[in-house]
């Protein structure tokens, strides 16, 4: 394991935000230099999720109909919700709910690896916080897949990184692009 103290968030990714009625969706894309099968395991297997995701699963998410308890990590209280996997088309598409959030994971084989896209609901005031949090989670996932695990960085630990966000609003006001920028920063 490399030294977590040396970790700083990678360059900003551009995220997309959509508003449908009162419901906001955050769309995040991460290019990973690993095949979809390997990424699929990382997003479905509890032992892998534990190393990067903001929740623990008590069972494998890789089968439609599977009933799994998800425990939110990095919060000061116990928050456990039960989910039933809606779709699991290995290694391309995974859908389930996390509490009242819809989670849709798409894995697309691209030259040199996988383009991972996550659609997740988000409450409007927490868009920037959520995008920054997922950005760090995906960074940690990238390290894990590359055989250089950092251990997951979520909750208050992720919030230690200063960040700023910039919005690029399109004319209809419903589709927005969000960039989370991490200035150079070294943790104490």
């Amino acid at each position, binding site marked *: 394991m490399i030294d977590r103290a040396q970790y700083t968030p990678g360059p900003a990714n551009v995220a997309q935000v959509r508003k449908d009625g009162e419901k906001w969706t955050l769309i995040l894309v991460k290019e990973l230099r690993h095949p979809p099968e390997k990424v699929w395991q990382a997003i479905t297997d509890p032992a892998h999720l534990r190393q990067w995701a*903001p*929740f623990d699963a008590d069972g494998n998410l890789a089968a439609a109909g599977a009933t799994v308890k998800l425990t*939110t*990590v*990095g*919060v*000061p*209280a116990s*928050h456990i*919700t039960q989910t039933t996997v809606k779709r699991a088309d290995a290694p391309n598409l995974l859908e389930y709910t*996390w*509490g*009242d*959030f819809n989670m849709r994971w798409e894995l697309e084989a691209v030259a040199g690896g996988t383009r991972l896209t996550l659609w*997740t*609901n988000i*409450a409007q*005031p*927490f868009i920037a*916080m*959520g995008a920054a*949090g997922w950005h760090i989670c995906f960074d940690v996932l990238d390290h894990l897949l590359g055989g250089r695990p950092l251990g997951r960085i*979520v*909750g*208050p630990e992720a*919030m230690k990184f200063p960040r700023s966000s910039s919005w690029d609003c399109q004319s209809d006001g419903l589709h927005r692009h969000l960039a989370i920028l991490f200035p150079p920063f070294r943790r104490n």
Partner: protein
Amino acid sequence: MRIKLTSVYVDDQDKALRFYTEVMGFVKKNDFSQGPYRWLTVASPEEPDGTELQLALNNNPAAKTYQETMFQQNQPGAMFFTDDVQADYERMKARGAQFTMPPTDVTASKIAMVKDTCGNLIQLTQLMRWSG
């Protein structure tokens, strides 16, 4: 070991934050989210580093039943102490608070009961003298 936090269940955290800050007069202390979970607390401006009140989303059916039953029995979900219950009553009424009991003298204290708009009755207590 210290008592640093107490919680009330609320049916809507945004609505609760409005009531507990704009009507009650508390200040937002912590507000962050991880996935679908939101940790939201307020504190008294008189004691900004004192005990926090967590406004916890009530999405647990058992807790909902408990909360509704307590409400129907006029049992408060939380109790706060004040030095002047009459002044708080006037101030909160002016901001639209719905009291189910105006300031009322009971043994050794004056109390009032207000709806928090999120499923709870809140008791305001002014101790008239310490007993014991």
